[in-house]
């Protein structure tokens, strides 16, 4: 199961500098016998190490990407746009992100915003249903035995398989896309919340029993704070999946949205814009993930895990 531990790839990248910082005093202590004038010089290698570990590797990574891209562009003889052309096109696209020439030709800003709106709606509804459902399933064994087989059966289904059902029931592309987001983001929230409730330390529940707390007090004072980190992990996974799925769903439903934009540019054979869209999708996903991790760490009590 998914645990409520929040680690980002960024954390991993952040640790080497910490090592570098602790290593620095050791390095300068060897020079401690020498006069103070040497100290500024001792600090210079520290800055270099920071540069080596923190700035250079990501730059090198992007460098490799651009290099491979450039090679592919050269070999494709014009059908695949080179990085520099794409960059110029990106500057043009982002110089006016909010133009609107009818429903099929809108700026990238509008496309991203309408995708985010769909994700927010579908995800919000899923949270509204999934989190209480998770609490109920975690708290009452009957509910857990009742719903676990259903969840196990439906969770592996690709959310796009639900799209036709959405189109049939809601008779519209937009609600169907929201419905798809709803389905794909509800599972992680139900499961993580339920696991969180089941993992509330039995000591806390014994306290509740000895104090004879009402079910409402148990929920607000014990269950909710104890489950919050698990719940936020569920939220994070749900938003991540929702952002993955919305692009695919919009390709099928059309309308305004980043997924539709990708598909539209493919029909126009505008590969540069597709590449720009890929980067935009990646950056928005990264920002969403990062924001949610920040929220999650702010609400995690150290002692919850001990």
């Amino acid at each position, binding site marked *: 199961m998914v645990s409520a531990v929040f680690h980002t790839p960024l954390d991993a990248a952040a640790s080497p500098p910490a090592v570098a910082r602790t290593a620095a005093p050791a390095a300068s202590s060897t020079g401690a016998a020498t006069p103070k004038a040497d100290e500024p010089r001792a600090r210079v290698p520290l800055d270099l190490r920071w540069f080596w570990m923190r700035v250079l590797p990501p730059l090198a990574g992007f460098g490799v990407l651009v290099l491979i891209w450039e090679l592919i562009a050269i070999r494709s003889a014009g059908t695949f746009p080179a990085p520099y052309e794409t960059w110029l096109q990106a500057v043009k696209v982002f110089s006016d992100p909010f133009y609107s020439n009818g429903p099929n030709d809108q700026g990238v800003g509008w496309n991203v915003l309408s995708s985010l709106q769909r994700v927010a709606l579908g995800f919000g509804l899923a949270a509204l249903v999934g989190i209480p459902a998770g609490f109920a399933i975690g708290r009452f064994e009957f509910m857990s035995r009742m719903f676990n087989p259903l969840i196990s059966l439906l969770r592996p289904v690709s959310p796009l398989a639900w799209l036709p059902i959405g189109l049939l029931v809601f008779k519209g592309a937009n609600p169907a896309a929201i419905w798809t987001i709803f389905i794909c983001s509800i599972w992680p929230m139900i499961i993580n919340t339920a696991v969180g409730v089941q993992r509330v330390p039995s*000591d*806390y529940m*014994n*306290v509740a*029993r*000895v*104090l*004879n*707390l009402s079910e409402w*007090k148990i929920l607000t*004072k*014990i269950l909710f*704070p*104890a489950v919050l980190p698990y719940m936020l992990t569920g939220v994070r996974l749900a938003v991540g999946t929702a952002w993955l799925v919305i692009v695919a769903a919009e390709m099928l439903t059309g309308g305004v949205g980043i997924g539709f934009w990708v598909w539209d540019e493919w029909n126009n054979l505008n590969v540069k814009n597709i590449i720009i869209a890929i980067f935009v999708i990646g950056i928005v996903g990264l920002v969403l993930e990062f924001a949610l991790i920040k929220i999650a760490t702010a609400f995690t*009590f*150290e*002692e*919850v895990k001990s």
Partner: protein
Amino acid sequence: MNDVINKKFIDIQNVEQTFKTPKGSFQALRDINLSVAKGEFVALIGHSGCGKSTLLNLIAGLTRPTKGVLLCANKEIAGPGPERAVVFQNHSLLPWLTCYENIYLGVERVFSATESKAQLKARTDAALALVSLTPATSKRPGEISGGMKQRVGIARALAMEPKVLLMDEPFGALDALTRAKLQDELLSIVQKTESTVVMVTHDVDEAVLLSDKIVMMTNGPSATIGEVLSVNLQRPRNRVELAEDRDYVHYRKAVIDFLYTRQAHVEKAA
């Protein structure tokens, strides 16, 4: 009649506790007969795995006995309740609430029906003052030491004005010096509040110093009460003076003799 209730404030009759495990049923306790008078301080002592915590949970009502009856103030113990407050071994404070809020949670539950908000606050403050933790009022459990946490746990239990205070190795996780300090504090608090206390411990000195009666349990499985020792030492008790007291040394010897001579085969039991 009242006198009878006071003498047998907690009355345990023929209690047996069997747990169902995947390997079959496991008898933890058998033939437990014990009565605790009002205002009495009783220590349950025995090797680990002898079922002393099981017995305490039964009195707390957290578990129900397989056989037999437990009475508190002549009423059957049917479940946990604030009139039998528990101090848990690992303090069990809620980490997202401040010390004040942790105590208030219990106070509110017991007294909010009959008292005003100001009275509830006064009770909570008084409980914090009783364990001399007024300065830590708005601190979270993560910000205070282990000894202080345990004191908040005791304050939470006492603030509910329980009929019985149940303590499950309350000082077991503390270092020796903090433990001694809290034992002294507990002695004076119990003196002040005249509480009825049942305490689980594995510390011989703690048992002799604090209690009026030491209940020594045989090794599990199927543990039972091996011997009950009355400790007739004058109160208030002082640990320094008692260290060379002949009676104290005698009681201590009796407990050690029981634990290490007659119930020594702890490895087999565990």
